[in-house]
C-alpha cells in the first residue's frame, strides 16, 4: 500500500524511546525476578512459597495458579500476569496513540492529505505494533534463556505475552474507532486489559489445589481471559503436568475475530469518525460551570474531570461486587479442605481470616486505582495549562486556586473510588448475613494516606518537572507497587527497595495491633509535597 513503509518507519522512529523503556521494564522485571528468586530461594523454600500461594485465594488472585515448584514455574506464577498486563497496556496505549491520538492532534489529516493510501495508516500501525511486540517478547525470551531457564518454556511464555499483546493492540484500535476522544479510548482499552487480569484472577482464586499443594487447577473463569489462556499453557510446569501450547491457539483465533472487526469498522469510518457520535449539547453553560470560589475554577475542573473520575468509581464498584460475591466462596472452599486450613492456620494471625485477607488483597487493587484516579486529576492540570492556560489564566483565576481545584477533584475521585468499593462489597456481604463493615472501612481507610501521597506526587510533577508529566507519575505508581510486591522475592539484600515503596507502609488493619506509624509518615510526606508544589506552581512561568 502506498506510503505504508514510510509510515511504519515514522511510527517506529517516534516510539524508539518508549519501546526501549518497555523492553527494560518487561524483560528487566523477568530477569530481575529470575535472578533474585534463583539466588534467594532453594527448592525447600520454593515448596513453602507455592504451598502458601495455593492455600491463599488472595494470592492466587493477585499472582496466579502454580503449576509446580521448579524455579521457572515459581517465577512464572508470580510474574506472568503482571508482565501480561504491562505488555497489554503498552499495546493499548500504542494503538490509541497511533490512531485516534493522531486524529485528535490533526496529524492524521496532514498525513492523509499526502499520497498515502486509505489503509496505509492502519496497516502501518498494525505492523509497527507487531514489530514492537516482537522486540519486547523476543528480548524477554532471550533474557530468560540466557539466565538458564528452559528454552521451550521461555519461548512459550514469550508467545503467550505476544498473543496477549496482539489482542490488546486490536482492542486499542477498536476502542479508538468506537470512542470519539483518545482519552476515552485509552481508558476503555485499559479497563479491558484490567478485566482480563481480574477475570483470570477470579478463575485462579476459585481453583482446586492439589493434595500436596504444589499446583492449583484453575476454575473455568480463566478461560474467559486471554491472560488466562497464556497462563494455562504452563510453560514451566513440573511433572506430572507438562507445558502445553494448545491454549495459546485461542490467542490467534481471537485475534482473527477482533482483526476482522477492526477492518470492518475502518472500511466504513471517515477520518475522525467514531461509532459513538458526539452529541450536540447545551447552548449555555449551567450555573455551576463558571463557579470559581476564591479564584479556583472548581466548576470547570469538576466538569472536565467528571468522566474519568466516574469511570474509576464504577470499576471500583464492579470489583466491590466481585469481592462481595467471591470472598465467602473462597473462605468456605478453604474451610472444606482440612489440609489447607491447617496450613493457613500455621501462617499466623494474618492468615486466620481468609475472607479478610482476600478482601484486603482486592482492596490493595482499589488503593492502586484510587491513587491513579487522584494522581490523574492532578496531572491533568499540565494538559489544561498547555491547552487552555492562556484562556483560563487570563481570567480572574488564581494559580494556587487552579491547582487546588484539581487537587480537590482528585481527592474526591480517589476517596469515592475507595468508598464505592467498600460500599458495594460491604452491602453485598451484609446482604448475605456477613457483616464486615468495620473491617472494610478500616481497610479502605488504610489506603487514604497512599492516595494522598500520589495526589501530591501528581501536583509536584506538574509544578517541578512538567516535561515528565506523561510518564513519571505512572512509573512511580506502577514501579513502586511492583517494588513493594517483588522485593520480598529477592531476599534480604533487597529489603531497602521495599522500604522505599509507599505501598510497604500501608497499615494492615487485620493485624492484632495495627501499626499506623507508616500512615502518619505518608500523610506528612504528602502534605510537604503539596505545599512545595503549590509554592512552585504559583511562582513558575505558565507555559501557554
Amino acid at each position, binding site marked *: 500500500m502506498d506510503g505504508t513503509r514510510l509510515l511504519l518507519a515514522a511510527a517506529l522512529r517516534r516510539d524508539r524511546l518508549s519501546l526501549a523503556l518497555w523492553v527494560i521494564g518487561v524483560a528487566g522485571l523477568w530477569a530481575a525476578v529470575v535472578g533474585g528468586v534463583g539466588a534467594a530461594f532453594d527448592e525447600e523454600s520454593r515448596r513453602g512459597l507455592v504451598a502458601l500461594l495455593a492455600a491463599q485465594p488472595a494470592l492466587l488472585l493477585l499472582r496466579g495458579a502454580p503449576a509446580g515448584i521448579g524455579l521457572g514455574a515459581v517465577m512464572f506464577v508470580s510474574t506472568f500476569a503482571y508482565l501480561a498486563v504491562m505488555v497489554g497496556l503498552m499495546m493499548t496505549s500504542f494503538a490509541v496513540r497511533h490512531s485516534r491520538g493522531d486524529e*485528535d*492532534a*490533526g496529524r492524521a*489529516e496532514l498525513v492523509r492529505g499526502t499520497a498515502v493510501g486509505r489503509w496505509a495508516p492502519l496497516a502501518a500501525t498494525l505492523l509497527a505494533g507487531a514489530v514492537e511486540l516482537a522486540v519486547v517478547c523476543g528480548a524477554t525470551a532471550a533474557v530468560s534463556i540466557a539466565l538458564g531457564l528452559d528454552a521451550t518454556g521461555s519461548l512459550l511464555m514469550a508467545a503467550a505475552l505476544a498473543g496477549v499483546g496482539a489482542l490488546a493492540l486490536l482492542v486499542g484500535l477498536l476502542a479508538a474507532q468506537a470512542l*470519539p*476522544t483518545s482519552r476515552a479510548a485509552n481508558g476503555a482499552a485499559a479497563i479491558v486489559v484490567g478485566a482480563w487480569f481480574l477475570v483470570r484472577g477470579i478463575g485462579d482464586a476459585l481453583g482446586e489445589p492439589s493434595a500436596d499443594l504444589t499446583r492449583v487447577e484453575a476454575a473455568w473463569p480463566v478461560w474467559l481471559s486471554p491472560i488466562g489462556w497464556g497462563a494455562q499453557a504452563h510453560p514451566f510446569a513440573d511433572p506430572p503436568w507438562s507445558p502445553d501450547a494448545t491454549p495459546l491457539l485461542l490467542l490467534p483465533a481471537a485475534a482473527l475475530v477482533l482483526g476482522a472487526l477492526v477492518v470492518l469498522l475502518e472500511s466504513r469510518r471517515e477520518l*475522525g469518525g467514531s461509532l459513538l457520535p*458526539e*452529541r*450536540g*449539547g*447545551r*447552548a*449555555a*453553560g*449551567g450555573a455551576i*460551570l*463558571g*463557579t*470559581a470560589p476564591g*479564584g479556583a*475554577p472548581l*466548576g*470547570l475542573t469538576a*466538569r*472536565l474531570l467528571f*468522566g474519568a473520575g466516574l469511570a474509576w468509581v464504577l470499576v471500583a464498584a464492579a470489583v466491590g461486587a466481585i469481592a462481595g460475591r467471591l470472598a465467602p466462596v473462597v473462605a468456605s472452599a478453604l474451610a472444606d479442605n482440612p489440609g489447607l486450613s491447617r496450613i493457613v492456620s500455621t501462617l499466623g494471625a494474618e492468615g486466620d481470616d481468609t475472607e479478610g485477607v482476600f478482601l484486603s488483597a482486592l482492596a490493595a487493587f482499589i488503593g492502586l486505582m484510587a491513587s491513579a484516579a487522584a494522581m490523574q486529576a492532578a496531572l491533568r492540570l499540565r494538559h489544561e495549562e*498547555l*491547552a*487552555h*492556560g*492562556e*484562556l*483560563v*489564566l*487570563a*481570567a*480572574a*483565576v*488564581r494559580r494556587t486556586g487552579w491547582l487546588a481545584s484539581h487537587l480537590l477533584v482528585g481527592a474526591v475521585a480517589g476517596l469515592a473510588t475507595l468508598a464505592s468499593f467498600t460500599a458495594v462489597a460491604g452491602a453485598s456481604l451484609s446482604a448475605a448475613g456477613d457483616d464486615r463493615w468495620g473491617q472494610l472501612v478500616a481497610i479502605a481507610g488504610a489506603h487514604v494516606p497512599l492516595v494522598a501521597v500520589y495526589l501530591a506526587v501528581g501536583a509536584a510533577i506538574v509544578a517541578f518537572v512538567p516535561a515528565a508529566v506523561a510518564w513519571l507519575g505512572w512509573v512511580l505508581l506502577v514501579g513502586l507497587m511492583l517494588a513493594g510486591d517483588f522485593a520480598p522475592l529477592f531476599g534480604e539484600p533487597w529489603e531497602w527497595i521495599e522500604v522505599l515503596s509507599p505501598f510497604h507502609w500501608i497499615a494492615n488493619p487485620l493485624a492484632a495491633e495495627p501499626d499506623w506509624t507508616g500512615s502518619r509518615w505518608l500523610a506528612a510526606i504528602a502534605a510537604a509535597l503539596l505545599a512545595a508544589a503549590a509554592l512552585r506552581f504559583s*511562582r513558575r*512561568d*505558565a507555559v*501557554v
Partner: protein
Amino acid sequence: MTVAPRGSSVGGVPGPVIETQGLEKRFGRVRALDGLDLVVEQGQVHGFLGPNGAGKSTAIRVLLGMLRATGGEASVFGMHPWRDAVAIHRRVATVPGDVTLWPGLTGGEAIDTLTRLRGHRAPASDRARLIEAFDLDPRRRAKAYSKGNRQKVALIAAFASEADLYILDEPTSGLDPLMESVFQAEIRRVAQRGATVLLSSHILSEVERLCDVVSIIRDGRIVESGSLDQLRHLRHAVVAYRGPAPIGVPIVDVAVDGERVRGSVAPDDVPAVLRWLGEREAQAVTLTPPSLEELFLRHYGDAERVDRARSERAKGERHGEELLAPDVEALAEPEELTGPIASTGVLPSAGPEPAARRRGRHAE
C-alpha cells in the same frame, strides 16, 4: 523593582492603562523581549504590530502575568502584572492567538465559563446578539469547531465581557472577511464605551482601519510608536508615472521599467515633484501616501538590507553600487516591495512561531 503608582486610570485618575519600561524576558539565551517600552493610554485602540516571533505574544503574556519578566518594569492599570494578576484580570478580556477550547464543552458553555471566570459578564442580550452576529452554533461541541469557529467563541466571550481593557492577540486569524467586519464593529463599540484595546496583529489593513496609535515591535523592542498620521508624515510617499527618467528632481529610490517610473518622495519635496511632473506632461501619475505596510517593511526590511550588505562585504564585493541597480533595489528597498505583498495585506514572516498546540481540528 519600583512599585508602580496605584490607582485606576479608568476611574478618572490619568495615567496609561499599560506601561512598560525596558521590559525584558529571556528564555535561556534567547531574548524574547529586549527592553520593550510600550505605553497604551486610556481609551486608545492601540495597534501592536510585528512579524511572527517579534515578541508580541511574549509581551502580552508578561502583561497578563503568565510569564514573569526577567528585567524592567511593567504595569497594567497601575498594578503589577505578576503580583496583582487576578485583580487586573477582573478588568481585562483577552483573546489568545491560538484558541484551544475544551473538546467536551459546547461553544455556548465555553463562552459562559470564560465570562463567568472573568467575573464581569455583559447582559444576556449582548451574548445573544454576539452569537447571532458572529453566526455561531453554540450547541456544538468544541471538538467539531473549525479554527474560525474556535476563534469566534473566544471573541464572543471577550466582547460579552464588560471589560475596561481588551487584549487581543491576532484575533482575526481564521475569520472570514464577513466576520472581520463584525469584529471591527465590536471594536468600535467597546472603544466608544471608553474601553482601551491592545490589538496585536500582522494584518496591516485591519490595524490601519481600527487603530489610532500603532507600536511596531521588532526583536523584542519597540522600533516605532505614534499615531498613524504622525508616522506617515515621517515617511516618503510613493510616486509612479509614465514619462521621462527623473533627472534633476528630488525623487529617490528610483526604479525604471521602460517608460514606467517608480520612486519615493520626501514629504517636503512633494510640491516640487508635482510641479516637475506637470511640466514634463507625465502620464498616469499616482502619488500614494505611505501605507503602514511600508512603515513596517522599512523596519523589517532593514534587517534584510544589513544582512545583504554584510554578506556581500564578506564576498569582497562593492555593495554600494549594487544597491543602486534596480533588481537588487527591488529586493533591498522595502518601499519597492508593494506589489504582491501589499495585495495580500500580510507580512512575510521572520520565522515560525512556537508550534501551535492544537486539539480539535474538524473542518465544518
